[in-house]
């Protein structure tokens, strides 16, 4: 799958994720994409190297007296790690970081209908931004909406097309304020996406606009 990904993270998002300054919902989406994309995993490695280089060249600030001994005491307090590095790639539709928030794979998601067959599940992250799973039945559309901030949409299963392009599994769409779009799922399969937003969406038609405060979309 990783070779077929066409839409990747940009440098700004990768650097902010490496620096650790993204809101949690965005970090989750970035981590999920990297789980599926070796290209961005390698680029993240490069940004982490910048972080390491900046830390390494920082002017020394002396650690306090007894710091080493205190660290050794901490080490001795904790039994040796038994954690094995033999991580096994999770099976399932949801990448591991998303499974951690859901508490399982797709069958553990608590969907709520948002109308027209579209369902969503909001994941518990810090309030600065919102992460949600979206379920769009094959051939169905998510209501036309614009954004005040940034919206990241990562395809986990199936595919969708909007006014911008076509997005398949592993692809991430980065939409900003200039984008008004109506994502439509491909006919072949139901589409499941992870979407992160840092401001509420703006719907074009009246009904979703009225429903918005209740649905938290």
């Amino acid at each position, binding site marked *: 799958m990783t070779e077929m990904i066409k839409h990747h993270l940009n440098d700004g998002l990768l650097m902010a994720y*490496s620096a650790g*300054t993204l809101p949690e919902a965005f970090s989750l989406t970035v981590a*999920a994409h990297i789980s599926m994309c070796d290209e961005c995993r390698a680029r993240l490695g490069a940004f*982490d190297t910048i*972080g390491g280089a*900046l*830390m390494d060249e920082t002017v*020394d*600030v002396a650690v306090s007296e007894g710091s080493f001994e205190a660290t050794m005491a901490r080490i001795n307090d904790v039994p040796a790690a038994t954690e094995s590095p033999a991580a096994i790639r999770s099976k399932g539709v949801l990448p591991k970081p998303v499974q951690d928030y859901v508490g399982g794979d797709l069958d553990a998601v608590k969907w709520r209908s948002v109308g027209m067959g579209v369902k969503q599940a909001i994941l518990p992250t810090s309030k600065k931004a919102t992460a949600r799973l979206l379920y769009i039945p094959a051939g169905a559309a998510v209501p036309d909406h614009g954004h005040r901030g940034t919206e990241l949409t990562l395809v986990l299963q199936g595919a969708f097309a909007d006014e911008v392009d076509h997005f398949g599994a592993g692809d991430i769409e980065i939409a900003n304020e200039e984008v008004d779009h109506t994502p439509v799922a491909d006919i072949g399969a139901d589409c499941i996406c992870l979407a992160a937003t840092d401001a509420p969406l703006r719907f074009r038609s009246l009904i979703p606009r009225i429903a918005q405060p209740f649905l938290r979309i």
Partner: protein
Amino acid sequence: MLIARVRDDQDKAAFRVVFDHFAPRVRAFLLRSGANASLAEECTQEVMATLWHKAHLFDPTRASAATWIFTIARNRKIDAFRKQRRPEPEDLPWGPQEEPDQADALALQQESEKLVEAIASLPAKQKELIEKAYFGDLSHSEIAEQTGLPLGTIKSRIRLALDRLRHAMS
């Protein structure tokens, strides 16, 4: 390789050398990121203790020691200052406990050093932006799309290490 000695022999002398080099840098990083002195000291000790406990997870073909310790310090920072979870990508499956290839580790080290030189020779304004991104709270939209950093070679190097890892597993 000092971290390998910590991992294999719980070598305290080797750990002391690593500590003396990195603990002041981790502390400076945390202070610049907004911690007060006592929080920075506490977090630094935790970061260095984590290094000891997780030494077996360090892979020198994928990251330099400075890079790896930076990621531990960054995660501690998110946890302690920002009170947020840090979702991490699913790790790649590891091969049958092979010793990392020395040549690969050396090549990565050299690429890391080149990147350090490249950062040092950046125009002051650009370097300041990058430092703000890592030490401050510059938002992702404030970080320019193009950082102007020559990331190509080190990215290829890391990509190669990932490909080998996958190959070893298949």
